[in-house]
């Protein structure tokens, strides 16, 4: 077993945040999520955090671990310096402990129309595309909407009106989809005051993405497409 020293930022609505220290044991390949479970299940049932699939797919347990946004279920305790500090994602209101209000994040996501727009009559079979056409937007299909990128962005910390990297990544996924017809409209939306041009290219989002999406590159591609459209 691996002894783990945890420092968790606790917040209760209406009260000042404070750091709580916990000592737990996890298996040699235990993850931060396992350490949090140990606390919640055996030491302090009031500790609150989100998790669902617990295997790096649903994206619900993104949090700031040792100062970096990561998925608690996808990082091993043995790879981290101790004590392991755990904080809620930055830039979003904290509901309790590690649970943040994701509503502004999803509001920005919805603003870019992240669904297939195609007014043609539905075909009798699937809408086909070539492997090359599919490859064009492959990277941005990997997004799991964990908000690790958006909440690592210093522009979003200062102003949550900025749609943020996740929304732009999800717009990118449809803008370059050969079956979609809403690309022009999405580029118009992202040309707005709070759109893609708020990005200052700090690369925090690319570093934070647990799926390894080249987020900053996707944002730059969208910016260039908006420029080409205007020219």
């Amino acid at each position, binding site marked *: 077993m691996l002894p783990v020293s945890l420092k968790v930022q606790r917040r209760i609505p209406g009260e000042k945040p404070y750091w709580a220290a916990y000592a737990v044991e996890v298996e040699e390949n235990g993850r931060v999520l396992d350490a949090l479970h140990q606390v919640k299940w055996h030491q302090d049932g009031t500790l609150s955090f989100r998790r669902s699939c617990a295997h790096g797919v649903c994206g619900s347990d993104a949090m700031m671990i040792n100062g970096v946004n990561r998925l608690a279920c996808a990082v091993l305790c043995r790879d981290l310096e101790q004590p392991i500090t755990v904080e809620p994602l930055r830039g979003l*209101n904290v509901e309790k402990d590690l649970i943040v209000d994701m509503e502004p994040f999803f509001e920005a996501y919805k603003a870019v129309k992240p669904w297939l727009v195609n007014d043609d009559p539905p075909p009798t079979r699937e809408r086909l595309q070539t492997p090359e056409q599919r490859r064009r937007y492959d990277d941005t299909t990997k997004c799991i909407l964990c908000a690790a990128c958006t909440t690592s962005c210093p522009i979003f910390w200062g102003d949550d009106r900025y749609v943020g990297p996740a929304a732009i990544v999800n717009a990118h996924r449809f803008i370059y989809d050969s079956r979609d017809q809403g690309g022009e409209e999405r580029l118009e939306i992202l040309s707005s005051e709070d759109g893609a041009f708020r990005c200052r290219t700090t690369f925090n989002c690319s570093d934070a993405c647990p799926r390894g999406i080249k987020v900053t590159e996707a944002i730059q591609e969208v910016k260039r497409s908006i420029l080409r459209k205007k020219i």
Partner: protein
Amino acid sequence: MSVAGAYDRHLRPDTRPSGFQVWSWFFMRISGLALVFLVLGHMLIMHVLDGGVDRIDYNFVSRRWAGFFWRAYDWLLLALAMLHGAIGARNAIADHIRKPLWRGAAKTLLYSVVFFLLGVGTLVIVTFDASRMPG
């Protein structure tokens, strides 16, 4: 209920299409590139060649501005530097001032200062006439 903090009041993204954002982004790239060469040329002529700043006096400026080329060079340097700096400062205001009223006030002040300085600089460069100066 959420914990009171800096992000309490969420403002919705402004998604109205804007041509200004894209053109200012493009301008920053072009002007930045042009400024590298203009500033290096300026530094070389004014600070390094022929004794540098020690030789700069009224006669030097009047000789330099006797022709069109150096007036155009200096005006381009002034205009690009002011506008490049103004857009950069505008971005900093957008990033750091959250309240719309303060943001608007800061931008108004910025634009006023920039256009005043640009106007005065342009007036000097365009109307300078060595023969009309006393002495």
